[in-house]
């Protein structure tokens, strides 16, 4: 009996030990291992640095600023009421929100505010208590403030609170710019210093790539100043200016108002984030005539000196098409059609091309398809299917009505005329530089030859004549050969055109014989005059004057 009792006692004793061992090794094993690892190993995230966006001269347009993440350690705070009362006004947050954070049970670390600048950090450091700490945290900084806002986009947060680029270049190149975070895991001693004989695992962070743009910040500044002044002078609700190098397709400047400050994007309405130059369409009006005429010249359907009779409105089906001022000049050449912006003359030229070829040129100029520009929010109005084009559609499209384009589509198409008929892909970024300094150049890309160099040359002369003899000749800088065309498009409202609401525009390039830049100016609903010749054209010439000085381009006449 005694031996059995002893046996049972020993069995029970070892059973309890086994159960206890099972509990610690199997059930609690993972948690204990994690706790042990936390005591002797050090695990850190090595953040990647977001790349810089710089203008063509290397000046940063978007870079990083050192700010801090402010956090609290509730266990080290002696009096949470005093802590809250002192910290809340410095951080400019409600006391109740800090109290709520501090009252969450079992929290050893509570983030209070993100991306706090240095002045506020220094103010907090002066407070006489423990329990507040700081972690370095980069914040996007735009040295030129709101300049080129639509082009740059901005950096906000994703659903995990991590930085993410939105709109413009920040959005389009987000993955390249942000890079890849690294990590380091090693064993540490009691003081937290690394032990080199232990196991160490290090994955280096890969910093984001930097971008060098075609954009020239001086040209951008000139354009923004002139556009702001022009909008004020002509009472326009909105305006855009785009300048492109016709030979490369590189965008030299891109400005749109109303704009916003990408460093403080939250203070603005969301509607303003979209870049109207790539995301909004408009009816181009008479500026479109140069594209249609170039097709007619290219097809030998007309020549510059081909004459037609402009004796009155032309009837297309049940519609009568008039000239813009309802004045008719009798026998006029195709050059005069462009110079005087004759709708009747354009119906004649468009009819000479024929529907099939007319549509072929629209497609070739890239109308109805995205240009492929490296900006996030590009969109395009689709052209109606080829078999749904009626005679009246063809007639109105020949003078730029009933067809929608984005400003970037329009300037790219006119750039082709300035570039011997070759259509280029527009680009903002010129070079991508990785964290080791290795540069990858984005080479200019020719999309297709739209019209022959001969046709482009004839159209250039017609556009020079339009500037020298057209409605806007009074504003032209003397001595320069500038090719250009005005446009005044009525805005379609509820199924009809509102004669008082127009989009005034001017597109052109200079110097005409060896173009340094192509420029498109649009002004939405100018109140001083609805006409492009009295609003967009003088603004174009004012900017052109500044560019002639900046590029040291001498007068040739």
């Amino acid at each position, binding site marked *: 009996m005694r031996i059995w009792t002893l046996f049972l006692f020993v069995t029970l004793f070892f059973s309890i030990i086994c159960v206890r061992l099972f509990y610690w090794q199997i059930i609690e094993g993972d948690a204990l291992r994690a706790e042990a690892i936390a005591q002797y190993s050090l695990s850190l995230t090595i953040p990647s640095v977001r790349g810089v966006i710089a203008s063509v001269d290397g000046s940063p347009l978007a870079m990083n600023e050192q700010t801090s993440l402010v956090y609290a350690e509730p266990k080290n705070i002696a009096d949470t009421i005093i802590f809250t009362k002192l910290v809340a006004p410095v951080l400019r947050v409600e006391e109740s929100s800090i109290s709520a954070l501090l009252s969450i049970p079992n929290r050893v670390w509570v983030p209070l505010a993100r991306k706090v600048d240095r002045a506020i950090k220094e103010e907090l450091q002066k407070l006489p208590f423990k329990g507040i700490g700081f972690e370095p945290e980069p914040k996007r900084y735009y*040295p030129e403030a709101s300049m080129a806002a639509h082009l740059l986009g901005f950096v906000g947060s994703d659903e995990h609170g991590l930085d993410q680029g939105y709109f413009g270049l920040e959005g389009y190149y987000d993955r390249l710019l942000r890079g890849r975070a690294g990590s380091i895991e090693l064993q*540490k001693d009691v*003081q937290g210093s690394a032990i080199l004989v232990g196991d160490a695992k290090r994955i280096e962070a890969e910093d984001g790539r930097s971008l060098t743009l075609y954009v020239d910040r001086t040209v951008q*500044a000139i354009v923004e100043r002139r556009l702001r002044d022009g909008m004020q002078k002509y009472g326009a609700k909105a305006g855009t200016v785009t300048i492109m190098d016709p030979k490369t397709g590189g965008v030299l400047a891109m400005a749109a108002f109303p704009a916003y400050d990408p460093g403080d994007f939250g203070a603005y309405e969301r509607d303003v984030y979209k870049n109207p130059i790539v995301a909004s369409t408009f009816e181009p009006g008479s500026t479109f005539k140069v594209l249609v005429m170039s097709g007619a010249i290219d097809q030998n359907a007309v020549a510059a000196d081909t004459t037609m009779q402009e004796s009155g409105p032309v009837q297309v089906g049940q519609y009568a098409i008039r000239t813009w001022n309802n004045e008719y000049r009798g026998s006029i050449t195709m050059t005069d059609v462009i110079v005087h912006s004759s709708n009747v003359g354009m119906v004649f030229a468009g009819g000479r091309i024929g529907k099939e070829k007319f549509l072929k040129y629209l497609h070739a100029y890239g109308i109805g398809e995205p240009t492929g520009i490296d900006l996030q929010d590009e969109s395009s109005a689709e052209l109606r299917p080829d078999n749904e084009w009626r005679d009246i559609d063809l007639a109105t499209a020949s003078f730029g009505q009933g067809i929608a384009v984005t400003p970037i589509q329009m300037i790219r198409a006119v750039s082709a005329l300035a570039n011997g008929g070759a259509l280029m892909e527009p680009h903002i970024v010129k070079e991508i530089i990785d964290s080791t300094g290795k540069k990858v150049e984005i080479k200019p890309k020719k999309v297709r030859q739209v019209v022959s160099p001969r046709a482009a040359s004839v159209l250039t002369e017609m556009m020079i004549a339009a500037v020298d003899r057209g409605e806007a000749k009074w504003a032209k800088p003397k001595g320069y050969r500038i090719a250009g065309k005005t446009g005044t498009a009525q805005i379609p409202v509820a199924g009809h055109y509102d004669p008082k609401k127009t989009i005034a525009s001017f597109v052109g390039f200079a110097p005409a014989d060896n173009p340094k830049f192509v420029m498109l100016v649009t002004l939405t609903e100018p109140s001083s005059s609805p006409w492009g010749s009295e609003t967009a054209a003088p603004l174009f010439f004012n900017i052109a004057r500044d560019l002639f000085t900046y590029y040291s381009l001498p007068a040739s006449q």
Partner: protein
Amino acid sequence: MKIIQWLVILLVIGELVWTNTLVRSGRDVTATDLAISELRRQNEELAYQVASASAILTIAQKAKEAGFVTPLPSQFVMMGGETLPVALVP
């Protein structure tokens, strides 16, 4: 036999010294990492200051304060009192 004993003792001592040196140099590595991160922070701070100081908006503001003006079609300064106008820009 004695040589082997001494060799073992020597190797054990050597091992201890070497291990101790390695552990201590861990602190140097940590200090170096901190120095690198501090230099990186200072570098970023300097880049930030350079960018702020060389922004076109800043330059334009400073030029205005220094008396530079937008060129006009004709500009004159008066020299020798108010009798001798000199054309700056024709």
